[in-house]
């Protein structure tokens, strides 16, 4: 996409370029917004952060070579911006009630369990939280996550294992050994 945008419309202005960029935003806005939402557990903050990410994308589009490159770049920049955002602003601790509710009905059998999982993930430290979001929201492998977060693959695998164990324990404690 980026390649096509720049091959067909070299300057950063013009209606056709704007249309092509708008298509690019529409294709990726859900991904960027949801990573930020799951990380920050704050809808307005997630929207603000996602908009900043797309402004940065607009400024850096010339350096991106393909659609896959754009996707990788967006995930990486969103993840790093989430960490920076959280460090700059101390957001209030999330409670079970405050965790973002999905706009579509959950495919899960148990909406309470899904809510509990999101709440536990929102309370994790920054790196494990991002690892979990990228693994289970974006279905990325440990190697891809390691590259996006500039972490060793071993660290990513270890975060995944420990967080899964922690989640199982926390969810079991609050819900009981029903479905997990």
């Amino acid at each position: 996409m980026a390649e096509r945008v720049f091959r067909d419309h070299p300057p950063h202005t013009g209606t056709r370029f704007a249309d092509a960029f708008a298509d690019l935003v529409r294709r990726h806005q859900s991904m960027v917004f949801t990573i930020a939402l799951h990380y920050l557990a704050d809808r307005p903050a997630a929207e603000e952060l996602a908009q900043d990410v797309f402004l940065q994308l607009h400024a850096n589009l010339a350096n991106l070579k393909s659609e896959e490159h754009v996707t990788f770049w967006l995930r990486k920049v969103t993840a790093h911006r989430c960490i920076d955002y959280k460090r700059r602003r101390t957001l209030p601790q999330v409670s079970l009630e405050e965790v973002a509710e999905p706009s579509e009905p959950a495919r899960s059998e148990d909406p309470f369990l899904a809510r509990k999982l999101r709440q536990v993930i929102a309370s994790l430290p920054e790196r494990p939280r991002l690892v979990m979001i990228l693994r289970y929201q974006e279905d990325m492998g440990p190697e891809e996550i390691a590259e996006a977060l500039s972490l060793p693959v071993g660290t990513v695998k270890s975060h995944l294992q420990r967080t899964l164990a922690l989640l199982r324990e926390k969810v079991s404690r609050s819900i009981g050994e029903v479905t997990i």
Partner: protein
Amino acid sequence: MTDKNMNLEDELKSALRRQQAPPHFTERVLAQIAEQNSSTQAVRTPWWSIFTQPLLRWAAVTATAASLVIGGIHYRTVQRERTQGEAAKQQLMLALRIAGNKLQLAKARVNEINATPSTNRSRSEEE
């Protein structure tokens, strides 16, 4: 992987699935980009716009070239005057050294005459 793990991972995928961005998200992003572009242009306008006019551009080039030529001439004049001053200073120093040597010689001569014995002087007076 155990069934428990599979279940938990499935639940996680479901809980963390992608959600729709807020309505009109794309439009707001594009509006911000347009705003950013216009503000960047407004900031650039005051000093860039001067040189977009050909007459002013040539005037600026001419003024720069003239300044360079005048500056060069002035620099060379100063350098020449400095060289001439250095040469004059060297000549003066040489003249002073020569005059000093002459004075030393004259003083030595006077001392020599004064030191001649008085008998020699009286004999020469009798003769």
